[in-house]
């Protein structure tokens, strides 16, 4: 599956955030997420010989993370209450599958956002992620609504260039 450490590292970097967010939402708990996902990667590297080149890494990672979370919840009494509303099915449900997809998209957009100028990124995030209106953003940043609009336009232009080829 991974021919070398460099490949393993690039998979780790691409999936770490989406997986942690996935576990955070499934387990309703932020403290577990990183431990769970790191354990999944440790296990995956140690057992990499079992998988061939065609393994669907994406499904494997999300399923394994869900499985590992289940293991954590079962072991620790403190998490018993979460276990009750946890669907223990090994495969991902349609909802979970969709969640995984949208988290991967969010990772992509977040990666692209890093290429935006700081001001421009802040305005875009305030509008898109925090749901603030143009006039609210204008007031908070002490800039005109026209400037907010210009920042948004610039953000869209850069994102479009980065996300579509």
């Amino acid at each position, binding site marked *: 599956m991974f021919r070398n*450490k460099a490949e393993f590292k690039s998979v780790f970097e691409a999936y770490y955030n989406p997986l942690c967010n996935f576990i955070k939402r499934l387990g309703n708990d932020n403290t577990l997420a990183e431990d769970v996902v790191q354990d999944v990667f*440790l296990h995956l590297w140690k057992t990499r010989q079992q998988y061939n080149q065609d393994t669907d890494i994406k499904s494997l990672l999300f399923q394994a993370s869900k499985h590992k979370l289940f293991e954590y919840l079962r072991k620790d009494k403190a998490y018993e209450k979460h276990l009750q509303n946890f669907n223990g099915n090994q495969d991902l449900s349609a909802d979970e599958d969709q969640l995984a997809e949208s988290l991967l*998209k969010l990772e992509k957009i977040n990666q692209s956002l890093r290429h935006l100028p700081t001001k421009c990124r802040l305005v875009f995030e305030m509008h898109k992620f925090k749901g603030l209106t143009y006039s609210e953003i204008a007031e908070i940043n002490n800039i005109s609504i026209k400037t907010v609009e210009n920042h948004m336009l610039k953000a869209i232009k850069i994102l479009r260039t980065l996300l579509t080829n």
Partner: protein
Amino acid sequence: MNIDKLILKLLNKSNSLEEFETLEAWKQESESNIALLELLNMKSDETEYTKYNVKNAWNKVSARLGFINFSKSLKWILASAAFIAIIISLYYFNGQSKSLPVFQSDEKVNHFVLQDNSEVWLNNNSLLAHLEDFEISRMVSLEGEAFFEIEHNTANPFIIELNNNEFIKVIGTSFKLVNDASNFDLILYTGKLELHALNRIINLEQGDRITRVNGSYVKLKDRDFNASSWKTDELLFDNTSFPDVIKDLENHFHINIQINDEINYANCSLYAKYKNQSLDSILEELVKIWNMKFSNTSEGIMIDYLSCQ
């Protein structure tokens, strides 16, 4: 028709029917166009997304898996040195093979004393790994930033392996090094050291600073007073310009400082020395010196206003 303007209007649901149709046609042109519009159309409750510290997590995982970076040239040097090979084989035949120490820091600065009594202060999210048993060779790799005080030992020099078969050779000295995929910054405080790079050796003397630009190494003339402030907890400003003060504060306190576009900081500079002071108390002084106004934001701090004589 400017497609970006149409997309912006779509986000605000203010397209005319005609514009909407133009956008639909553009959308159908490619899969990635569809994906982009889907992304931009996500509602704010769907876009909740925590950004974890991936670099830090990778350091932890690679340390637990015992990954180390071993460059080919250093391997070759080792392999060709017959006497070392013999020592290594004896070492393994004795069955004493053990894992080599790895030192790391998370959010805070960590101080370590190595086996040879050399001292290392690791800045946040950094990792130092031994590449050899110290009794055979003092060879390490660094991912991140560290301040070193190396014990003098001419017979067994201290070697920091860099990327691309390059390395730093140290006899006994103190220096600061930033080394990761994108940055390299080396400042020598006392003693001498050698940087072995691109088939040449660069000798550094006390006070020298060297950085990497487009893959080649450049010696810098100006001294950066606050490059090691995270270790000394001392900030020194000597007629330092406003943007440089902000940059140093950002680095020292690991925060994000935004500056209002309309600020005029042409005459703002600072003479000051802060030892063991909190960010709040420094900001309070800047408020007095520069007539500064600032506010706390979700991203960090926003400088709203300045007025310097």
